[in-house]
């Protein structure tokens, strides 16, 4: 029996990972881990199985964390990305494999520096195993096998949401990550060099079959931290990553940012000093979709090679009433975790990698297919 530890196991993405591991792999026990034991227990107990257990830990307490993960096969990190580096160091100490959802470029760069340490303990760390980064990186790996030369890549994702919400606003994922995407300087590869440009610049309109017209802007993403070196031999010169949102959504988030609601400053509130962003983030949590809402949405991840001579899509629909954008983030994380624990579909044995340089695309796509996520090459199915 393998042991998988899911940190943040009762969070939006953690829940999906735990469920997928439980359903698709009978050969593992799963620890649902977080700060709040009650919440962990509530979720773990819903499986009604001795294979799923709840554990409490403070991930900022290294000793506690190391002793918890010791003896496990893979640590899956589904907490706010700020803690990635510390958690990896705990994995080195406990000698376990590691998987996460990405480090928003800067942290990913720092995490990659732990490569030789993971090699030394003969373990694997795979960074950015969600939808984007994650599926997008594997799409690039697949594309690189089809093309001799790749000068230019453009990546974006877009959502089409037909859910009838009762709430006035929907928060798609962590508010703090969202704010980072709106305010941190995006990295782009331009003429072979990484450059940082103005937040929310590079606006573009995409018309996508089945998704309609979408406003997109450049954003900081982990793909830019690893794809330039992966594609170096293909002659890569330019890479751009964009997010797309609805106009109304962009306006609301911008208003909060421009009027100081995402500031990291302290505010004196009822005699206590509190960070403004922490209070706002707490307030915004109520806009995470209510579980009773009947979700109907779909998401497309698209990689465009050489100005459209090839484009690869991954399309996800609402599954088990989980929105496409969350489902396609949790599922790859579970697939890659199992590739490690079962030792299959991987190109290398140890070290720190991004998905494009270690995952076998064909095997990965066939696992996605089992879960309803389809891959298209110039609009034709490949999985």
């Amino acid at each position, binding site marked *: 029996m393998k042991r998988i530890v899911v940190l943040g196991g009762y969070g939006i993405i953690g829940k999906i990972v735990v469920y997928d591991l439980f359903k698709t792999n009978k050969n593992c026990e799963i620890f649902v881990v977080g700060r709040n034991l009650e919440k962990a227990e509530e979720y773990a107990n819903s499986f009604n199985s001795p294979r799923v257990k709840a554990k409490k830990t403070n991930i900022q307490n290294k000793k506690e964390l190391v002793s918890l993960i010791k003896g496990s096969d893979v640590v899956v990190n589904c907490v706010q990305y700020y803690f990635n580096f510390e958690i990896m160091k705990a994995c080195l100490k406990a000698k376990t494999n590691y998987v996460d959802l990405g480090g928003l470029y800067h942290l990913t760069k720092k995490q990659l520096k732990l490569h030789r340490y993971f090699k030394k303990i003969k373990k694997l760390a795979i960074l950015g195993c969600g939808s984007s980064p994650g599926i997008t990186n594997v799409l690039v790996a697949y594309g690189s096998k089809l093309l001799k030369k790749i000068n230019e890549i453009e990546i974006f994702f877009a959502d089409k949401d037909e859910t009838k919400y009762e709430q*006035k*606003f929907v928060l798609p994922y962590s508010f703090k990550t969202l704010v980072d995407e709106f305010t941190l300087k995006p990295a782009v590869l331009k003429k072979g060099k990484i450059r940082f440009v103005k937040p929310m610049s590079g606006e573009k309109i995409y018309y996508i079959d089945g998704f309609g017209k979408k406003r997109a802007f450049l954003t900081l993403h982990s793909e830019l931290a690893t794809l330039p070196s992966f594609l170096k031999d293909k002659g890569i010169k330019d890479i751009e990553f964009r997010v797309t949102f609805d106009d109304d959504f962009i*306006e*609301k988030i911008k*208003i*909060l940012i*421009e*009027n*100081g*609601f995402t*500031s990291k*400053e302290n*505010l*004196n*509130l*009822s005699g*206590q000093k*509190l960070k*403004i962003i*922490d*209070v706002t983030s*707490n*307030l*915004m949590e*109520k*806009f995470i979709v209510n579980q009773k809402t009947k979700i109907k949405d779909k998401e497309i991840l698209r990689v465009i090679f050489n100005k459209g001579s090839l484009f690869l899509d991954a399309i996800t629909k609402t599954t088990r009433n989980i929105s496409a954008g969350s489902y396609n983030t949790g599922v790859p994380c579970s697939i890659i975790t199992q590739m490690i624990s079962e030792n299959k579909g991987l190109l290398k044995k140890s070290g720190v990698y991004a998905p494009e340089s270690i995952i076998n695309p064909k095997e990965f796509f066939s696992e996605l297919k089992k879960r309803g996520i389809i891959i298209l090459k110039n609009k034709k199915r490949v999985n």
Partner: protein
Amino acid sequence: MKYDFIIFGGTGFQGSICARDLLENNYKILLVGRDKSSISNILKNKNASFMKVDLTNYKEIVSAIKKSNPDVVINCAELVFNVQIMKACLETKKPVTDLGGLQKITEQQFKFHKKFQEKEILCLTGCGSTPGIVNVMTAYAVDKLDSVETIKLGFAWNSNIKKFVIPYSMPSIFHEFTEDPVTFHNGKFVREKRARCVGEVNFKEIGKQKVYCIVHSEVYTFSKYFRNKGLKNIHYMAGFPEHSFKVIQTLIDLGFNSEEEIEVSGNKIKIVDFTNKVLKKIKQPKNYREVENIWAEIYGTKNGKDKLVKMNCLVRTLKGWEDAGSNIDTGRTIALISEMIKKGQIKDKGVYAPEAVVPQKLFFNELAKRKMFVYENGKRIN
């Protein structure tokens, strides 16, 4: 120690503007609030003092008035304290002015009319710009007509730099935009849908602006005082520039105006207090200027003929008062009306709104001294 005026809410935005006006006229004032850090500049003046008072504690209010023994009590605090402060003024027999109570609280305040008459003191409610200036302008126009059928009124403002700056009390703005407004229609009060947009109006000095039907106290007081002239319709319209309105609407949509408490790392926080504090950190951009147009259109008859009187008061950011923007028309107006009461220029006793008792010409002259100019059908009259 004897003071000329005590100002409740003296550490707030309007209270400190009011204080500065009175200090420039050499009055002795006591500013009352929770935290004096916002008024350190004002307190450098030897005629100004500060006292910490919790307005939710009635006894503290009474004792502050007794200790300062002022000629007039000025209330620039949030409107939820209006009734509380009025009661304290009845007990201490002091005249009181305030900035208005929107609809509900204004109605409650007028229930004290007899008591104030009996004790022979005056409570003048709604002494800012609107309510305030607009009430006196309307009374001036109504007096010129034989009959009045419809009054449309409101405010509109804009700034040269399109950046959000707190326009006036955020709790009041949130009230105005979330409470269902009442209009006076065909001689009856009608409940409307909250803050709905009722069209676009072209304003002098401001240009085209969308206007919203919001709750305001004038609808209640005009119907009371002008009904004998045949008044049938009163419509209040607020004009916010788009860049400001969007921010307010978004904060309401996201529930940042909520009176509820949330728990953040073990501390209970009232959401609207948090919002207010974050917004207060926003500084005016350099060279930021505002212009406000307070307006009323009075439709009626004179000598058997239809007649429309258009009244406007135009207020611009004033040199030396840049931080106050166009809010000088609220804080300085309550100062000058309170001064008129102290000087004995308003002698009535009971609870009144300005349209009933403020001498118009004298009032307009005081406005002009402060560069707030009143226009009748486009012609300046002060």
